[in-house]
């Protein structure tokens, strides 16, 4: 793993996965900078972690339950208020508006 650097095409693919449009100049700089960071973090590979349990977070807490009681939700008009595009139907229902998902 050590010494492996990223190619421009790999960085382009990661940008696509991350839903980030990057300019060619950004892609080139990112390839250089991410490559250096990936090389740095690759030092973890030198460490033997055979049999070590992953630690996802530091608390000995899991499966926190609460009573299943209805609460007060955020009113719909407030929830959509900050949306860049929103629609109201003739019946007064409010929606987030996005470009067509299926063409």
């Amino acid at each position, binding site marked *: *793993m050590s010494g492996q650097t*990223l190619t421009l095409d790999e*960085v382009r693919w*990661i*940008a*696509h*996965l*991350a*839903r*980030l*449009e*990057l300019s060619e100049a*950004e892609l080139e700089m*990112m390839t250089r*900078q*991410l490559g*250096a*960071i*990936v090389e*740095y*973090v*690759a*030092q*973890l*590979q030198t*460490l033997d*972690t055979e049999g*070590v*349990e*992953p*630690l*996802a*977070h*530091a*608390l000995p*807490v899991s499966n*926190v339950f*609460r009573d299943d009681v209805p609460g007060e939700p*955020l009113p719909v008009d*407030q*929830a959509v*208020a*900050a*949306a*860049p*595009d929103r629609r109201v139907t003739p019946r007064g229902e409010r929606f*987030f508006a*996005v*470009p*067509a*998902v299926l*063409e």
Partner: protein
Amino acid sequence: MSRTQLTASQLLDQLHRGEVTAEAVADDFLRAIGDRNTLLQAFLHVDEDDILQQARQVDTRRRRSEPLGPLAGLPVAIKDVICTKGQPTTAGSKILANFRPPYDAHVVERLRAADAILLGKTNCDEFAMGSSNENSAYGPARNPWDPSRIPGGSSGGSAVAVAACLAPLALGTDTGGSVRQPAALCGIVGLKPSYGRVSRYGVLAYGSSLDQVGPMSHDVRDCALLLEAIAGHDPRDATCVDHPVPRYAQRLDEPFASLTIGLPREFFAEGLSSEVEQAVRAAVEVYRGHGATIREVSLPHSKYALATYYLVATAEASSNLARYDGAHFGHRSTDHRGLIDMYCKSRGQGFGAEVKRRVMLGTYALSSGYRDAYYLKALKVRRLIRDDFDRAFAECDVLLGPTSPTVAFSLGERVSDPLAMYLADIYTISGNLAGLCGISIPCGFSASGLPIGLQLLAAPLEEEKLLRVARLYERATDWHLRRPSLPS
């Protein structure tokens, strides 16, 4: 001495005794902000009318002898990644330039319940990603001890607000050192609570298994007061522990029957500036002089902490920042071909360079074929880092070292080298990975007059002990009394 230079406790006393009104206090701080914010860029948003109105309400209720909360009339500055209902919350990002949240963060609710005055939103690195405040889309905050230097980050604006006496108290957030490191570089006190001590509800998420909101103040007593106000259980954050909140401020001066302080060998290694080391070693002698037992300890996996952090935090960030999609809130690109393209363009236009870098790194670490090698590997090393601390805390009450390897560096010095910038957090990140509580307190100045911070770390939920140990040093020294002299 101007009223803005007082500690929060001193101001509270004056307010309580009726020597000053909340409105007059708010007015003083607003005037200080008006005088100095153009130079220091500590605040991104200050709603003067709203602030004065909050203050007048507290004064009215005090006149009527109504019961008031523990911070009644005291202004508190809020880092701009913490949601404030109806007030701008930009996270230092263009993507949220016009965002006003429909609700308050839990910590903001707690401050309102304590009758504190919400003083405005402070500058920070975009989405709390950075160590110098230079990643703010609105320009960097500046260090009041030398405005040509960075204040640290990511809670740089909060640190500057307190250090420059623009606010007596501030909230920051700390994912890898973002409260402690700017506190150190600005000569104030900053505490990162144990993971789970303070609710993250309404705090724009960066690394969810690492993020905590923390108090920033002139001294340890003020820090304890603010922690008391924000700590405690909140069912809206499932990782917020249901554990009683001690009256931190009350027991601060209780002496220790015995106190063992561990010095991690790895915190005094290569890369530490000699001025910082001298100040920290001198602090060790202060503790020794007060009867503490000093013991050298080892945290052998420390050297892997930075790499571990930059995989764990970025993986979580890549997932958390997926919500900034141009659909629900924030910036949307007007020119796009379909939904996916709308996402890509909105995010490409809205996010700054460091956020893009971290989202990319995290996406890579989680992507098919690399997840085990990077993300899962990092979680295993995280366990080893935590185990090191467990062993150290079995024989020590607290661990002591520098907060930052250097004093504040110059603006622009590290912007082109992300790895060099990441090194600024080398002593603070392991505390987040292990879920510890940690505090930075002022412990000296460099020859060039820049503050130096001392970091103390304690086991999870040991804030009470941590604050007492910090207070012990503070009582014996006067670094925390210094204020920068600024052109007025």
